[in-house]
């Protein structure tokens, strides 16, 4: 083989991947950024409008509330599952429960189910005449039975808790795997030092789980910011605009209202938020090394 052929070889192997990646991800992403500076209905000529789409987005109460709702979902999709999964993984790892693996697999199961299936299923469970309210009535809590997804107060937290249900198992699995990597000698040393259970947790377990916690938060927080499927098949943003999230706004403006430039601007803002949050989570975790 000639020297020239040898140097070209790696690029030949990369070519197929880039033949897909460049036209279907990279170029459209650059176009989204470009499009965000135009006013375009998708059919007639586009007009350059500078930062107007961004100005409109920042001034719009609807856009601001959409990002606010996404932030609320971050709590339910990310923070809550991590807080629940930590004691769950730690206690089940040290107790060596018979059948523990099978139980953890069950808790992980919702992660494998298509989000659309999760959405229509919970739509039934949370309906006014659904099983959740039937259970509440059976317990004599008639007053607590509401139309969960149709309520201005409860729609967003309800969707959030569906997210908690979906993502808890992922966090438990990640933490449980992480716990197996912590050397037992660290626990022995802590025991020799006379550390109690809490000190042991903060001195050995928590630092040892830094990697898995970082991964769990990155994955779940991105899932919260990008929530679309679940909202689309359950509330479509309602009641009113109580559960409108950025993904729903992008879809509506681009494919229902014919405001492609505005949709692109929101998409760019969403991307920046996702990049920033991913960077921040990983940065904080490195700093605490």
């Amino acid at each position, binding site marked *: 083989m000639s020297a020239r052929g040898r140097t070209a070889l790696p690029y030949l192997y990369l070519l197929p991947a880039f033949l897909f990646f460049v036209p279907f991800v990279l170029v459209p992403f650059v176009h989204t950024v470009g499009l965000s500076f135009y006013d375009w209905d998708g059919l007639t000529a586009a007009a350059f409008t500078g930062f107007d789409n961004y100005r409109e987005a920042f001034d719009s109460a609807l856009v601001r509330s959409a990002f606010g709702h996404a932030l609320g979902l971050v709590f339910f999709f990310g923070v809550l599952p991590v807080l629940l999964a930590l004691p769950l993984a730690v206690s089940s790892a040290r107790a060596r429960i018979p059948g523990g693996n099978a139980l953890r697999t069950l808790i992980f199961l919702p992660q494998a189910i298509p989000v659309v299936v999760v959405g229509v299923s919970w739509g039934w469970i949370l309906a006014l005449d659904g099983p959740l309210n039937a259970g509440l009535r059976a317990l004599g809590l008639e007053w607590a039975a509401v139309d969960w997804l149709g309520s201005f107060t409860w729609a967003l937290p309800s969707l959030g808790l569906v997210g908690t249900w979906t993502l808890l198992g992922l966090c438990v699995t990640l933490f449980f795997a992480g716990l197996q990597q912590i050397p037992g000698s660290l626990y022995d040393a802590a025991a020799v030092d006379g550390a109690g259970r809490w000190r042991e947790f903060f001195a050995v377990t928590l630092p040892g789980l830094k990697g898995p916690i970082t991964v769990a938060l990155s994955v779940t927080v991105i899932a919260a910011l990008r929530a679309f499927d679940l909202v689309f098949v359950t509330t479509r943003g309602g009641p009113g605009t109580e559960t409108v999230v950025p993904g729903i706004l992008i879809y509506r403006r681009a494919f229902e209202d014919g405001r492609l430039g505005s949709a692109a601007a929101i998409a760019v803002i969403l991307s920046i938020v*996702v990049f920033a949050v991913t960077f921040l989570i990983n940065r904080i975790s490195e700093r605490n090394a």
Partner: protein
Amino acid sequence: MTVAHTTVTRSAAILISFAVITVLPIFGIVLLSLQPEQAQLSGFELPDRLHFENYARAFAVAHFASYLQSSLIVSVAVVVGTVIVSTLSGYAFGTMRFAGEKVLFYLLLAGLVIPFEAVIVPLYVELRAGRLTNSYWSVILPLIAINSSFGTFWMRAYFRQVPRQLLEAATLDGAGSLRILWKVLLPGARPALLTLVVLVFMWSWNEFLLPLVMLSREDLRTAPLGLAFFSSRYTTDRVGMAAAAVMVALPVVVLFMATHRRFVHGMWVGALKS
């Protein structure tokens, strides 16, 4: 030892209650799917008998045979495409040294953090101009593209941990790079490839936004898309909806159950990407 014993009991109780909370809604939907047609129930009630005919009805009358077929075509094509391009690129990144290696790798890795919402608008406009919307290609090609980011990352990690002596010995024997890949590396890569196949299949099967935007023809609809339309159109047929939901989830749930150990490991390593 009574202290340790209560700890185990309490931990087990906590774990079991979370498992029950997780499984209860799934159990409820499966139970609902076996009720008599048009049953309007509000609780978890046992049906008089198991009405499997709901599945036949959803399969034939509600077009789920066609939706499932579309999903299968799309998912299999995406898996085949992603595995091929990711194996080739992962091989280059994992075993070869070349100029621009880092830049190209991180460029491809950006696909892991770019939200799909941020490419969907121009993607639709461009595929419409190329008359590709309303064809399986409009879903398959972008999914291969976005999944090849993870696929490359995943296969590169595999190829990197192959002992260098193995590669050097094969090179000394005069084997070309493609031959080394095929004869020396791929036979040992089967566990890594299987994980990639399972993950990409699930991601493709579950994808919603892309087919929602690209496919308006009913005969092309994928299973999640068909379910979303079905549940919004037949709001009173909850039994039918439940049967359809179970059918849409079943292929990926079975796949998950059959491979979950490997899958969970894949999630773990794969999640480290971001």
